[in-house]
């Protein structure tokens, strides 16, 4: 999958099958041809020997809670480590400004002061290094709450009490442009009004607000109607960081040779379209980096029984 194809998929297009497959990958695909019964047996064997672990999920939750609590305690205990909230803050004095909030302010206000520029540039470099949408799963407080409510959705769905209604993923691209356009036309940071990330971050630091009611409505919508709808189909913050992540060296890598194609990774994934490559016969090469829409949450890395999905830093292997 080329870089432009991965971007296209992030913007909402359905993943295409590869046009060219390397001879090495073709050979692996050939070797994996077998009868349905053998294939099922193989998958079952892999699952049976899986060591269930939540290594990356636990690390991620710890980081997410730590970052958000650092904001809270910086204010409450006046330790002044990380002042402000997720939209804009200062880490021991250095300006940090959320890329999507900065974009909204820049478009609405059309006047960029030095501190705003410095903070935005710092955060841009930071998330290029750390993987773009890893902001979503490793920092965003809505992500972790939505993850807990997703568990409820899956329980209810398993009992057939609710079902997941999919939307077109292109909706998020449309909304990203619409919110940018609205900021320019109206002169207000329209998106911030309904941003659960900003609302939750401020609530954690400055105390509860009426706006939490809106966040609860969103969570109920996700539980009862559409799995992880906000993160999957709406949030322009995710889109902004996704674009940053397109050039990030930190990503999850898929290794065809290790894969038994059970498909468990796609079941736990927030953005399963990025894992289209794990479908039997889809991989164009032995190693495939997962697309920029991936939040680097590591759920697939945890769930994969055969180590076919791993965290990887591009270029590092060549250096070592």
């Amino acid at each position, binding site marked *: 999958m080329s870089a432009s194809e991965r971007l296209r998929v992030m913007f909402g297009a359905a993943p295409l*099958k590869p046009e060219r497959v390397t001879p090495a990958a073709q050979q692996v695909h050939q070797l994996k041809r077998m009868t349905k019964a053998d294939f099922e047996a193989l998958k079952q064997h892999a699952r049976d020997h899986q060591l269930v672990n939540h290594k990356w999920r636990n690390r991620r939750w710890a980081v997410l809670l730590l970052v958000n609590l650092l904001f809270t305690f910086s204010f409450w205990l006046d330790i002044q480590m990380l002042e402000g909230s997720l939209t804009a803050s200062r880490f021991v004095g250095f300006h940090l400004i959320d890329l999507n*909030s900065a974009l909204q302010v820049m478009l609405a*206000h059309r006047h960029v002061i030095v501190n705003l520029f410095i903070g935005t540039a710092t955060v841009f470099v930071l998330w290029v290094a750390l993987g773009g949408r890893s902001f979503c799963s490793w920092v965003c407080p809505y992500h972790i709450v939505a993850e807990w409510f997703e568990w409820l959705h899956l329980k209810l769905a398993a009992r057939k009490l609710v079902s997941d209604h999919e939307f077109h993923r292109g909706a998020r691209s449309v909304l990203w442009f619409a919110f940018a356009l609205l900021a320019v036309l109206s002169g207000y940071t329209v998106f911030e009004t309904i941003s659960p990330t*900003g609302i939750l971050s401020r609530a954690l630091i400055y105390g509860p607000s*009426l706006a939490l009611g809106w966040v609860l409505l969103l969570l109920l919508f996700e539980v009862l109607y559409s799995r992880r709808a906000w993160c999957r189909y709406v949030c322009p913050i995710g889109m902004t960081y996704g674009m940053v992540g397109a050039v990030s060296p930190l990503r999850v890598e898929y290794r065809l040779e290790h894969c038994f194609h059970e498909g468990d990774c796609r079941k736990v994934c927030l953005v399963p379209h990025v894992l289209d490559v794990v*479908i039997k016969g889809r991989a164009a090469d032995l190693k495939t980096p997962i697309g920029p829409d991936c939040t680097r949450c590591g759920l697939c890395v945890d769930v994969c029984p055969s180590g076919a999905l791993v965290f990887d830093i591009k270029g590092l292997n060549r250096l070592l």
Partner: protein
Amino acid sequence: MNERTRDDSPAAAPEEQPAAASAAATAGSRRPQAPVRRPSSRRRFIRSAFLIGGVLGLAMLGYVPVAGAQRTRLRPPGALEESDFLASCIKCGQCVQVCPVAAIRLDDIDSGFGIGVPWIDARAQACDFSCDAVQCILACPTGSLTYHKPAALATRPGMPLARAPLLKAKEKDAEPTLNLAERMGVARLSRPDSCLAVQGKGFRGQARGADFRGRLRYVERDRWRPVAVRDHPYERDLCNLCVSECPIGDAITMLATVAADGRRQYQPQVLEQCVGCGVCEMICPVDPAAIVIDARQPWAI
């Protein structure tokens, strides 16, 4: 995933095509075929259009409180004009964190686009410039609160101050003025009838009662730490709290006149150097306050 594409890749294995397979199996039979059940992309498209419309519609609802201008909020010192302020504020609350008297609070979702934007409830806790340097302006990362407003941004006549305001607490310092170019609003004796000075009355005790949580800097008690107003009782023969507690020089004075019958009459008079910080409104011992801040209003004779 219901986004299936045609299988034309030589490398693709014959897996994951249940729909195609079942269609082929029933192709030969003569019985009328049930339509192959595929997730309706049309239905999904309509659903998505509703989602986009719904999200944008809900976000734009935030315009209602702004357009209605139901609330004329007192903004922190150095704030840009309201529409510029709402546009440039990134809703981070850094101004809240640095305020030594916790005067600044953030608006909620019922203020629409004003969500997370700082404001001051002067009656509950006014800005008394305890910080000396206007810390909230220093903390603001986007220039929503600023010392030097760019020339391109709007300024209404009557908002700029004639000269830098003198901070009484710094009177003896080498640099006794505040770096503040515009006022936040302007004080007004809105209920002269209830004003104790107008009635010729004095005041004794806690200005706002025993439960009041507001704080003020009393330089003679502590130059750096604000004190709770309830811990600083007053004893005045003629109530002049709004004049004596005003942190700014030449912003308010007690006007004394002699009436026709020879009795002396008093009335607090707001002067042009008033920055609109709200200390007079907070300290006014009558309820509701006789003197209030007209938030974001210019000086007008």
